[in-house]
């Protein structure tokens, strides 16, 4: 059985009263998407709105996709971070591609130097902090959906539980072209959606396993 929660994104935005978390998320998406376009081209001059971490206070908003009210980030001591792991740098969710320690003077305490790449924009960030400090680590999710339809650049994506969402645009990237081409060709395939700190983006495709 397939439950379709289909809403036109524009009308959803104008409704503004829906209390579902999904809608909130979608509003955020929509908002971000509009700004994201120039961002992709100019390479990140835009000032992002302050990140509002979703906290437990939001959990009264029933989360339709079955997630708990887990926060978007959690703290971790610098020393426990690892290469290939994730961290929030300058307010952005990043994958750590380089990590090293240094100290000031022979008897100084360790500091951690990190280079991260924004998992959505590919922009590089660097940061250094005392290794005793806590850093925010973004909760990262990768979910696979089956692509059902593309409507005016919005994907209809069906999750494992049969629910369909239509709030994600086809990204303007190679993978976006890939998605459109595969869809045109009538192929059955999965789309992997990467989700962190309230932002979502399709990052990979995968041909459906033959059952």
């Amino acid at each position: 059985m397939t439950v379709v929660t289909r809403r036109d994104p524009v009308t959803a935005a104008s409704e503004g009263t829906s209390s579902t978390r999904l809608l909130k998320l979608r509003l955020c998406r929509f908002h971000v998407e509009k700004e994201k376009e120039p961002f992709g081209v100019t390479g990140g001059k835009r000032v992002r709105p302050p990140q509002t971490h979703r906290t437990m206070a939001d959990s009264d908003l029933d989360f339709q996709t079955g997630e708990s009210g887990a926060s978007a980030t959690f703290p971790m001591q610098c020393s426990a971070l690892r290469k290939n792991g994730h961290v929030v740098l300058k307010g952005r969710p990043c994958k750590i591609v380089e990590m090293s320690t240094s100290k000031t003077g022979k008897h100084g305490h360790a500091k951690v130097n990190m280079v991260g790449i924004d998992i959505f924009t590919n922009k590089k960030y660097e940061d250094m902090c005392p290794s005793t400090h806590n850093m925010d680590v973004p909760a990262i999710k990768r979910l696979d959906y089956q692509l059902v339809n593309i409507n005016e650049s919005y994907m209809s994506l069906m999750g494992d539980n049969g629910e369909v969402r239509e709030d994600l645009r086809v990204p303007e990237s190679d993978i976006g072209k890939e998605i459109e081409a595969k869809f045109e060709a009538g192929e059955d395939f999965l789309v992997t959606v990467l989700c962190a700190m309230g932002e979502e983006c399709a990052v990979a495709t995968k041909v459906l396993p033959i059952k």
Partner: protein
Amino acid sequence: MAAVGAPEVITQLEGAAKVLMAPPSMVSTEQRQHAEHVFLSFRKSKSPFAICKHILETSKVDYVLFQAATAVMEAVVREWILLEKTSIESLRTFLLTYVLQRPNLQKYVREQILLAVAVIVKRGSLDKSINCKSIFLEVGQLISSGNPTVQTLACSILTALLSEFSSSSKTSSIGLSMEFHGSCKRLFQEESLREIFMLTMEVLQEFSRRENLSAQMSCVFQRYLTLANQVLSWNFLPPNLGRHYIAMFEATQNVTLKPSESWREALLDTRVMDLFFTVHRKIREDSDMAQDSLQCLAQLASMHGPIFPDESAQVSYLAHLVEGLLSMINGIEIEDSEAVGISNIISNLITMFPRSILTALPSDLFTSFINCLTLLTCSFGRSAALEEVLDKDDMVYMEAYDKLLESWLTLVQDEEHFPRGCFVQPAIQVFNSYIQCHLAAPDGTRNLSVNGISSHEEEEINELQEDDRELFSDQLSSIGMLGRVAAAHCIPLLTSLLEDRVTRLHGQLQRTQQHLMAASDLGTVDRKVLDDLYEDIHWLILVSGYVLADDPQGETPVIPTEVMEFSIKHSTEVDINTTLQILGSPGEKASSIPGCNRTDSVIRFSKALAFGIQSFYKLRKCVRLLSAVLRTSEVESRATRASLTELLSPQMGKDIMWFLRRWAKTYLLVDEKLYEQISIPLSTAFGADTEGAQWIVGYLLEKVINNLSVWSSEPELANDTVELLVTLVEKRERANIVVQCESWWNLAKQFASRSPPLHLLSSSVQRTLMKALVLGGFAHMDSDTKQQYWAEVLHPLQQRFLNLINQENFAQISQEESVKQEIVATLEALCGIAEATQIDNVASLFSFLMDFLSSCIGLMEVYSNTPETINLIIEVFVEVAHKQICYLGETKSMKLYEACLTLLQVYSKNNQSRKRSDVTAEEDQYQDLLLIMELLTNLLSKEFIDFSDTDEVFRNQDQGTPASGRTVSAADVVLYGVNIVLPLMSQDLLKFPSLCNQYYKLITFICEIFPEKIPQLPEELFKSLMFSLELGMTSMSSEISQLCLEALSPLAEQCAKNQEKDTPLFIATRHFLKLVFDMLVLQKHNTEMTVAAGEALYTLVCLHQAEYSELVETLLSSQRDAVIYQRLADAFNQLTAGSTPPTMDRKQKVAFLKSLEEFVANVGGLLCVK
């Protein structure tokens, strides 16, 4: 041949030269490339002698002259056999005269022309067509002319000859084999080299007599001095060295002087040595020349071998050298530029002269020498410290100091050959000065510049910078040895200094604490005093560690004899009760305990009392040094409890851990069987079944646990801490005590529960901690306890994991952060468990891990879109294969192969249909591939290293059919893996050197080990494998190229075995025949590769005889010149003469390889002509 069109050629060349010499902005890249091409093809043109002569005589452009000289040199070698001997001789005369007549030639043009002359002489000496004698006659005349310009020219000729004959790295430039170079060199070193030396000595003699040297004269002087240095640094080739050995031999740096007997007269003459001392005295203020003259003396100091007729000759030579050296040093104030040279002389004579010769020196002379060495060492040490303060780029004194300390080590290691105790006083002086340089004022001089002002700058130190204990390990080893030689002085000195510093540190921390209570701001604390104390303690602990124990890699460390003797000697004066008390109270000040002066300074405990240790310990002096370190450790721990961690030095924490680990390896539970005599106090304090040992193990455990919670943020300190823990449990005897401690069990429980603070540790530290906990589990315990232990350590891991993955909705919750963390922690722990593998625990660990491996494959599915998890899962397999495969018997290996195969299948399935666009996609894939190749190589290593029951392994290998139940072989897994890796490998990825090496190593292994599997590969895979080989052979580094060539022989042999024609492999080998043929015959190649390429060629020729003949025919028919044709045809006939018809027979192959070498030497260069 007339110079047809010579003016045009010259115009073209001069135009091209102008382009090449123009500033980069003036010409385009294309123009530049074109100009380069003009010169390259000019140099390749056939018989360019006439035109070159013409150019040399007419052109005014230096660069064109240079190129003409190069063209002549290359062409002479290339066309040697076609040239008349007389025309070669006239060419040589022309070149030499040319240079003589043009004193104003640019230096680089002149040198190039002389190089051409030298090459002609060398090539000529091969077929004896040129006699060197006449050249030396000419040069001798030039020298005696007295004209500085002409003398310089003479020097240049000799230098050119010397470098052409000396080095075999020039091989490729004349395309001759190592043997030819070797025999040229041997011939040269017997006569011509000595002639050059004699000529040089005459010149030096002459100059050293003159009073005032003009600038021009001293320039000539310097050139001859350099030449003398080159002669004395000649790497004398011993007779009868195999070809392989020659290549190795030529690569050695720091050549020592080992002339043949024929040099006796020339070098044993004391006037030679005196001359060099005189020369040095004369020019020592000129730093460039001084380096050469000192280097000459250093070479003379390294002289050894058949040149000495007997021992007495050697003794008198050495005595003369030492006398000369002492009178040279004593009369002067040493210049900065002399330090390294002088230390080289000393280091060479100490290293090269046998102990018996050194001790045969007159005792006065020997004593003066040792005293001089002592003073010099201390003085260089102080200057080195000064250099560090000034942060000089060029640390000449440091280098000199290192050399001298190394020489001390050499001397002291052979102490028994020398008069007893003769090194004690020098050792004390050197040791004291080292300590002094490393302590802060007022005791020491650290960071003090010349005017006594101390500098204190904090520099940024990154993790790549080595810790002092490694950076200065050579110095510290020497100082440690000297400290042992003078143990009676050095150990008490270290103890009292360390005790003093710890007391001061304690006081300073207390004062700071009070200050903080008032001001409560850490920023206001002056760290200068603390940092000075930390730095003092840092060096004192390092030196103590090096004095008390060695760090023998892989051997059982033993207590140094000197320390043992020292301990025994002082055991009688030890007051047992007091010693115990000190040892037991690391928190107390030693001097506050009455009678502490009578305790053994190597041990001091105080907590011992709290642990109920009775007063049956005798404490030794060496134990008191340990107790000083324990006190430092205790002060540190107390400061952490008082929340002063901020103020502590992680470096000091590391030092303490490092010392305790080094100490524990050697002293804890001493095995009395290893020693002839044992110090009673040492064995009663730390021997097996002693309460002292139990107490210290308990203390160390507490310390480790405290460190892991306090210092989780300091990765290096945490790492040193867990390494100490591993040391405590890796030996069964120590582990037996460890597992009796309650704190050990608490640690295990705490880690298993994944609660703070242990989970804050970095992943590598957590892995090592896991390793230690597993190792501890194999200690001796009764079966109930053991069961309980595993229930605490491993079962929670398994239970938590199973509970998690067996949840019905695991797939849904798998992306939740807490779930992902649990999974990552489990995978990390598995890596740690695999690391704990030893031969005696592999059975139980393997079955434990195997259960997980199958679950891990399930995880591969669930986390197929989560690259960091996938990567970690593969790593678990890599670790298990790496640590365990060599111990596994057949059935168990099979299980592992199967698991690996499934892993690879799932990986491949999940990746085939995936397309990613995120930034790190390429990096992730690179890491996966590297790990997979590592996994495959680990699995293959079973073929070389196998500790499992060999009978069982062999029984099944010889059977053609698979053993019953045998489902998967290593070959299947590896080939399947290659199947995954190959399509993903791109030429871009091969640009990562590590990946490229690993990849080619893997495919060469496969071709060598499973050639029979290659023909069965799927077509695509087969093609890409062959393409990879071709790519590796033709366009990678020579190392890779060699690997690929080595892979070809087994493939060709496989084809021959099968006897099937027209298989893809058969066709591919035919293609390789052409490639290898071209490579060997037509292209300039690295001579090192001749053997690998030759072996490949031979097997390929055996397989494709008809095609080979065709290749030869085609090559011959393209030759228009009848002489060349004949010569080539003969060469090819000779090449295969010893192996007709070619068969895969070792004897024939060897014959072929031998004639191939001649072939390459004869016609190799010939075919390169355009």
